[in-house]
């Protein structure tokens, strides 16, 4: 089995994890796919060390997270996304979230699948400054302090954004009740 064949098996094994991580952080399928591709190309460059390592999933998650943050910083000026100064931008993103929430189907009898779909849509529609810390906390198991350091914002800002994100998601899930 050649290196390329072994790497293809590696991609098949981890592609869902890498893509899901990128999608949660970025909220856009096309961006998530671009980042996932870059992650795997980096993995191929270090395939000698990463390929058989038990630390491969952790390495892939870390690289994915860092690339997603770089992507967000590059495409939307980071100071507007993550600083306390980005009020106008935040307002625009909150409005977008509200319109997404209003567009979700409202039925009398809601099953678990509908609730999950509503939650997924709401998560993707959250403003990035709320979605990113929320995902890092709940999926990547990072502490508030780690998130603040990673994003370069204050601890209070991280806590506030995560709290607002949770409250928004709860509204999305329970509005049918």
């Amino acid at each position: 089995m050649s290196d390329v064949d072994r790497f293809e098996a590696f991609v098949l094994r981890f592609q869902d994890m890498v893509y899901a991580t990128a999608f949660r952080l970025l909220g856009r399928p096309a961006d998530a796919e671009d980042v996932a591709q870059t992650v795997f190309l980096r993995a191929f460059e270090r395939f000698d060390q990463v390929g058989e390592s038990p630390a491969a999933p952790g390495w892939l998650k870390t690289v994915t997270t860092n690339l997603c943050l770089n992507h967000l910083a590059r495409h939307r000026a980071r100071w507007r996304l993550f600083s306390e100064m980005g009020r106008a931008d935040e307002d625009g993103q909150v409005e977008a979230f509200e319109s997404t929430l209003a567009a979700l189907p409202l039925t009398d009898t809601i099953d678990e699948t509908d609730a999950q779909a509503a939650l997924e849509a709401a998560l993707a529609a959250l403003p990035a400054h709320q979605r990113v810390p929320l995902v890092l906390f709940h999926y990547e198991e990072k502490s508030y302090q780690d998130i603040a350091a990673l994003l370069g914002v204050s601890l209070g800002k991280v806590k506030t954004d995560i709290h607002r994100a949770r409250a928004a998601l709860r509204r999305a899930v329970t509005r049918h009740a």
Partner: protein
Amino acid sequence: MHEDEELERFIDARLKALPGRRAPETLRSSVMQAVRAGAARPWYARPWAAWPAAWRASSAVALLVAAVSVMSMTSMTSMPALPSVVEPLLAWGAWVMTPVRDVAAAVGTFSTVVEVMGRVIGQSILGVVLGLSVAMVAASALIGEAIRRVAFGETGV
């Protein structure tokens, strides 16, 4: 505070119950296409981390030798408290670089001489050209004035 913790637990359970999102079919094919294209390139056209181990080691040694040589040329051999491994390397670098430095000095001297000569000659030629131009303009004016007087019988003002 209790309400916050309850909200945290509620959202945590809901988020973790979400089914994992599957990668699109195009991801694997695009990655493998890029990998195969990269694998078709010669080793030296790939990123350094992907070079064969022997070449990586050789290039690292070459870089070290170059760095030592530069340090030797810039007279940094007298730095205090150098590790014992570095001192022989610096001495060797100085030994290797001495003839190179002499040749460089000779080339530098030669180029300076050529430059000075060029300036002197250039300035001389410039002076001659300037003088000739002034003389030719004056001669043309004199000849023109003479022709005017002879042909039209005019007098100068």
